[in-house]
């Protein structure tokens, strides 16, 4: 039997060593071991997106991955994106456009959108890109499709879209 390897996680720039139960999901390590409860558990099966975090620049469902598999990975959670007193542009736009109601899906929406904006900038295609060979347009249909891995049962989608568009425009203008 191999000795269980530990995992050194970098979470929001802070280093953590995890050598607990290998069954524990990255989500549960964040919530239970590190006290980073901004990342939410909505379904625990990759069906809602509430647990979205950014790992090495990419958004993933933290519920469907084991913490031990993230040795040396750079993980960004909602707590690493902004704080109530220093919100990111996107977080502030969510407040201004009421891009949430109950707030439970919200950290996942914001982590997801943060990474999505980068994916569009890098020219990744989506299912609604007319020709995958083309650089995608920054159109509403593109954003809706790309955000479809994040459910919002309160139905704030229209406002979430407005918040994302606003934040993208602000960021673009600041460039």
């Amino acid at each position, binding site marked *: 039997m191999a000795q269980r390897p530990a995992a050194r996680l970098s979470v929001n720039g802070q280093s953590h060593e995890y050598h607990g*139960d290998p*069954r524990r999901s990255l989500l549960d390590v964040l*919530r*239970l071991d590190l*006290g*980073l*409860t*901004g*990342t*939410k*558990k*909505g*379904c*625990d*099966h990759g*069906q*809602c997106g*509430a647990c979205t975090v950014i790992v090495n620049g990419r958004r993933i469902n933290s519920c469907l991955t084991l913490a031990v598999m993230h040795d040396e990975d750079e993980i960004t*959670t*909602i*707590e690493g*994106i*902004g*704080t*109530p*007193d220093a*919100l990111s542009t996107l*977080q*502030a736009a*969510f*407040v*201004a456009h*009421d891009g*949430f*109601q*109950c*707030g*439970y*899906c*919200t950290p996942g929406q*914001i982590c997801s959108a943060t990474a999505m904006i980068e994916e569009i900038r890098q020219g990744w295609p989506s299912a609604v890109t007319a020709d995958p060979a083309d650089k995608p347009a920054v159109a509403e*249909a593109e*954003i*809706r*499709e790309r*955000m*479809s*891995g*994040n*459910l*919002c*049962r*309160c*139905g*704030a*989608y*229209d*406002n*979430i*879209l407005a918040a994302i568009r606003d934040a993208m425009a602000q960021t673009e203008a600041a460039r």
Partner: protein
Amino acid sequence: MSDTYDTPDTRDMLDRTRQGVIGKPLDRPEGPLKVAGTATYAAEYVRENCAEGVLVGATISTGRVKKIHRDLVMAMPGVLGVYSSERMLRRAAQGTAGEAPEQDVSKVDFPMQPVALVVAETFEQATNAAKALQIDYDDQSGDAQFMPQDVDAEPAADPITAGDLDRAMRDAAHSVDLAFTTPGHASAAMEPHAAIAEWDGRDLTLWGSLQMLTYNVAELADSLGIDPKHVHLLSPYVGGGFGSKLGISHEAVAAAIAAKELDRPVRVVMSRQQVFQSIMRRSETEQRIRLGCGTDGRLTAFGHEALVSNLPGEEFSEPVTQASEFLYAGENRLLAVRKSDITRLTAGSVRAPGEAVGMQALEVAMDELAEAAGIDPVELRKRNLPDEVPGEGTPYSSRRLVEALDAGAAAFGWNKRSAKPCARREGEWWIGMGVASAARVNILAKAEARVTLTADGHVIVETDHTDIGTGSYAILGQVAAEMLGQPIDRTTVRLGDSRLPSGAGSGGSWGASSTGSAVFLACEAIRATLAQALGCASDDLLLQDGKAWAEGVEPRPVTDLLSEDLTRTGKIEPGKLMEKVNQSTYGAFFCEVAVNAFTGETRIRRMTGAFGFGRVLNAKTARSQCIGGMVWGIGSALTEELAFDSRDGHLVNHDLGEYHVPVHADIPDMEVILLEERDPHASPIQAKGVGELGICGAAGAVANAIYNACGVRLHDFPMTPDKLLADLPDPFAPAA
């Protein structure tokens, strides 16, 4: 200050105050916490030495637990206890029950009903042990009925009848007689049900995800057999409710029992699957709607009958015909709901019980009658708004349905609709438009709130009311800031703590108007004291930005009038007005859809809603409630359906992968028109509820648009591609 609401408050108080924050589209005060992930939900409190509990569901449909093989599981790593007691809940409590629901988990009422709780040191140990727990059953499923049609249904209430419906149908110039079905729905709030229970001697503290703390304290205390004074509930943030958290559920009682036994805190979070399998479903319905009108389009016959279901012994029945009682004319009437007792999980309140499914069927029937009569569907609705509630003679309070239909039609461009289906094709897609009315009952509920104006000029609002995403934090602060003339950033709202005065709780769309009125009344009492100090009549007092004055009285800082904190409690109870005047909320939906000519997939292209629901307390959060409701309407129209196995009653699609709530890509641009009105009959703040109105009829507009697009008239929701396919026209045929 207490007020049984018997006479309408027509002072328009909130229009005469000066602060100018009421109704404004202000950001939610708790917004920064929610977007930064620091708002704390039930499962997220850090308690020293907290153990983890996982519920175990029954693998039979109905029967009894014979033996639980505890020993094997107790020997597993980290396992602390296996609990299965006569106090644990078989069912969740219905909304406003205020007492324990069915207890004793040695009985099984429905498939996957919780029968035990396994507690371990860690979540992983507990879930694994819960799976491993062997239970022997006395399976009595052989006698059970799983399909509502297979049971002799009983009337859920006395039918409402007037005149002779059959004869009126025969005599009508135009009539429709239609059968509809709607499937079961799940609330599917994003936060699963969760509780952390901790005892200090005889006192229980429970962090829960709950909508109505006053009732929940009573339910939990009764379930545990303790005095309510020993129960302290905390629920400051709730990750969505939609009815599913009105009453306490399995996890709260189980956590409390285990925590007592183990003498340490216990957290129980239901899995997403368990929430689907054991928390309230909306009943499926079968509906028959009969409408008849004269050549002038005026309704003479109005019949709406429904079959719903619930578990044996549950009184709740989906009130399908609720809006049919008051919405449209028709002197010959029959409204009736029957209920079948079947073995499926408990049916209860899911956002807008009754209207959510009743209105979508009625509004399709109205569309068909309009077509039969050759009258524009908007016009047909306008022609059939009665002067008083049919059969009752009760007058209406405010009803801006005509304005909603007209404003919605103008904004949407309804005049561009072709009355004939299959008139517009864009590539593979048929394009069509539909309309529906919105209607929902309005309720004022008992509520209490405490407001403090501090000596240094801060406003503090306190009540055990909850904010489940509805905007309570925002609007209660706005009412108080407006009344007391303080800037909104000097206003603090504290909610979700059962030790605070009893708010109305979030449910039935009554939270804002009821608890808002309690805040208003508390502020009136504070104003009276301030007026006295200033030396003017209370109604003459003017307050703004921390200054107080009156006609002929020089402005003074309010703090000069205060020697200490000034605290008053406001209390409202529903009174005679609820009976004397019909107070409902209204609106209209307009929807454009595209239906794929080949595959029958429907995509919503745009949607407009216009709504009148009394005073708007915060235009931003009110609009959010409306778009949320419309999203639910789209889900109900196109994607949402609980699928039960007819052989044993178990829910097959018990997760978010297979129960399809709408995703971003399903939802188009949404336009919301808020029709300002004052309804002094509804509440002292002249506001009504808006949390549910946005669903009530929305799916009908979608269905009508589908028909207008492609000519396929469906009566079975949701309108998935499989149902459209059979009747779709030849995709290669040119457009008509």
